[in-house]
């Protein structure tokens, strides 16, 4: 039975290298994360569990896997740099603290001073872009256009990462 299944598998091997970026990312992510987790596991079993630092280590590994699996993007390079430099210090949480959604700024209408609607809109947009800058690793050093292009890939990779993590967790719950 197993033999049959193995043979079935062999029939559907792809001969070409996998060019799909999503599958590529997911596969790389898994290949980075799982061994790292195993290592952590082994280390942990040998020493005592120190809960907060353990969490941090796992988080760190998660972020590292994330950054390593998406080498072609600017934000991944920034993330990698940040992670590597912060290894020497305490591992820094790269995700922003759960903050509220950006509050809309009240439109500035000072006494007698009427700004153009475009100006106000531009100001609001700029505010939001700044927020976006904070969210994106390396966003501080990018200009507005770059941010928009990097955000797209960042979001997709985040989603993929989520899927992988969920499947790992689910795997171990069931």
């Amino acid at each position, binding site marked *: 039975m197993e033999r049959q299944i193995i043979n079935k598998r062999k029939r559907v091997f792809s001969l070409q290298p996998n060019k799909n970026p999503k599958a590529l990312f997911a596969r790389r992510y898994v290949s980075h994360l799982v061994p790292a987790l195993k290592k952590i596991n082994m280390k942990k079993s040998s020493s005592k569990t120190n809960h907060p630092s353990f969490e941090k280590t796992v988080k760190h590994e998660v972020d590292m896997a994330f950054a390593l699996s998406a080498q072609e993007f600017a934000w991944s390079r920034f993330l990698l740099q940040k992670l590597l430099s912060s290894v020497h210090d305490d591992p820094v949480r790269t995700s922003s603290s759960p903050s509220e959604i950006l509050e809309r700024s009240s439109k500035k209408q000072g006494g007698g001073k009427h700004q153009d609607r475009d100006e106000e809109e531009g100001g609001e947009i700029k505010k939001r872009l700044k927020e976006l800058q904070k969210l994106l690793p390396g966003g501080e050093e990018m200009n507005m256009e770059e941010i928009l292009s990097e955000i797209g*890939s960042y979001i997709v990779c985040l989603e993929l990462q989520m899927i992988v993590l969920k499947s790992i967790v689910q795997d171990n719950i069931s």
Partner: protein
Amino acid sequence: MLEGLVSQESLSLNSMDMSVLERLKWVQQQQQQLQQVVYQSSNNSHELLQILQFHGSNNDDLLQSSFSPFQMLGSGFGPNYNIGFGPPHEAMDECISRTSSCHMEPVDTIEVLLKTGEENRAIALKNKRNPEVKTRGEEKTEKKIKVEAETESSMKGKSNMRNTEASSDTSKETSKKASEIQKLDYIHVRARRGQATDRHSLAERARREKISKKMKYLQDIVPGCNKVTGKAGMLDEIINYVQCLQRQVEFLSMKLAVLNPELELAVEDVSVKQFQAYFTNVVASKQSIMVDVPLFPLDQQGSLDLSAINPNQTTSIEAPSASWETQSQSLYNTSSLGFQY
């Protein structure tokens, strides 16, 4: 029809000889016959010939150099030449723009000649006619952004230069949008009626178009962006979504840390489940990811039938990944998502 025109031009260009002058004289003698023939010919050629006629009716000395292409064109259509100042401006302009939209190589030279002819005509016109006649400069200020082109902004400066030269002698714009100009590797920016056509605003307009293109791409990625309009709202949604995703990753990693002691990780298992997870996520709406963090959509696997794959078998790592990828390849290919830049 234009393709036929171009090929004729190319042919005639190659055979350009002393016959030009002879033709010139011959054509000038046949003013009356032209009119009839012109009206008999097709619409496009009619308009094209109107240019020629119009052109021919101007000062011949001035236009001698640029005369030849028109000669060629005229010869292609027979003895059709001078008629008069009849043609409406729009027809002419459309005609010119149509000829200039030809994609073939020989048209380059013809277009250049046409342009110089136009400029000369414009100068001549100014003396004679209403200054509101649409000249080539005005027409050249109208370009188009090639959305599908992989254009380089560095080339744009070059095209802008040409346009600003031409627009130096433009008066007020009176025409509607012309059709496309030559497809070069430029970012073609279309200036709408009444808008500034100087270099900076063109550059800014190109930049804005780029930004809006990216925003559209983001709109496809981020769920729920379709209902919101305007940049600010969309950026809001995007920020919200990114924050949400990051929070979820944090939560999941924490959970992983908690569960880690009990992990029985095997790469094969993970990749298989991954495929299942992705498949179900694609099927289910994305909202479920955001809303049900503790609830795993993996529970809904009704549509997926992977019974052939036994997750507990000890095959090599390559096998499941490869098969998973081939199976999922069709899925990925059908979905329009990808990294576009």
